[in-house]
């Protein structure tokens, strides 16, 4: 990538609220960050998609153990169901296995799976069908699949 292209990218970014742009190509890897103060380690963890890593998402607020949501592995359009089908892949209440496809991410002609990070029950869709989502956006909320406590 040429310096002129980087300058052009930086100029384009200046007009947006994008905090971090990462570009991976077969020729190299570029990361442009608007706020240089953010801790590098935190960003790296986020980039590598360490769903289990300590972070804002795993803060437990109740007796129910918090579960990380299924997140977007890329920028794309979030789909609840396959474009050829009318029924959602995993409507709320569906029990899912770790790695099971709970939604799709459309990038141009390509469809990527949105995978459940752990086994659980789909609680809710956090983004509407057809919405444009960014890298790392939480897409599907999951709850543990264990039965509710008897004193609930």
């Amino acid at each position, binding site marked *: 990538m040429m310096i002129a292209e980087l300058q052009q990218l930086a100029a384009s970014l200046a007009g947006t609220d994008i905090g971090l742009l990462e570009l*991976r190509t*077969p020729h190299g890897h570029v990361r442009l960050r608007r706020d240089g103060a953010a801790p590098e380690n935190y960003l790296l963890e986020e980039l590598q998609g360490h769903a289990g890593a300590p972070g804002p998402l795993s803060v437990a607020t109740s007796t129910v153990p918090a579960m990380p949501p299924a997140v977007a592995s890329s920028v794309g359009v979030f789909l609840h169901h*396959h*474009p*050829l*089908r*009318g029924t959602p892949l995993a409507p709320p209440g569906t029990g899912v296995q770790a790695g099971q*496809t709970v939604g*799709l991410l*459309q*990038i*141009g*002609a*390509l*469809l*990527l*799976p949105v995978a459940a990070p752990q086994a659980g029950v789909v609680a809710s869709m956090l983004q509407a069908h057809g919405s444009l989502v960014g890298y790392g956006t939480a897409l599907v909320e999951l709850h543990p699949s264990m039965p509710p406590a008897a004193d609930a």
Partner: protein
Amino acid sequence: MIEVLSSTALSTVQDLGRTGSLRWGVGTAGAMDPLALAAGNLLLGNEANAAAIEVPVFPFVARFAEDCAFALTGADCAARLDDQPLLPWWAHQARAGQVLTLAAPQPAAVWRASRAYLCLGGGVDVPEVLGSRSTQLRGAFGGHEGRALRQGDVLRAAAPGMDTCPTGFGLVPPALALPLQVDGVAAMRVLPAAEYLCYQEASRAAFWAGEWKITPQSDRYGYRLAGETLTPIQPMELRSHGIVPGVIQVPSGGQPIIQMRDAQPSGGYPKFGTVIEADLWRLGQAPIGSRVRFIETTWDDAVAALGELQGWLDEVRRLAGLHRWQRGRN
């Protein structure tokens, strides 16, 4: 390797076709939906022209005798691998012993299609004959022993590639990315052909304005349509001449026949028009009993439409390649 378990008729091994052999009287053969075949191959990192299995009758059941990457495109057949439901237009992986089942496509589906394609890692390994692996049914050569698949047939994947071929991703089907309909009915663009002007003006107008039903007398050889009778200004007698898939002939009864992939290379009926090459996949997927419409087009637009298809395939190749590269990197 996969073994065919079902006794369903008419499934064949096809690639993009045996072009360049018409001069020897050898028809084109090849996938009725070449776009689906090419896309399935690109999902697996195969060459677009690799051989795959075209399935027009259901259920189709096959057992994987070894671990194998595969892709399903074409009609959505509510496919299952053992008991696990599979997404359509998607690259999957099978373990040795798993059984793939394709059920009949739903008539109420978002995209009403009739043929499914099962692509295997590296392509279906059958010998190339006259530059193609397509089954030439009329000549009984090419494909798997020159015939449709039968129960017990075993086909080899050229490169099952379980450990090297990332799967688990798919495509938005071109029927949705490149839709073409008139009044909610699947449509194809047609170039008027040599004898077009020999038909009465009312017949010519009716051809473009009306719906055409695909009759049960329709197969890989040709589609017989039912609709308004096409009447010539005066009776015609022609000598036999070369014809290609897409040519719309009108026998004396006035109900058109569209030549499809297994068409013979010559015929003597008047030629009313030609479904453009870029839209033959749409027709190839139109189920028996469904209705289609025709849109008059020009040579330049027909060439541009072919470029649009190629552009879609190029984008699929680029995105699938980039995704595989990224997966290999992580």
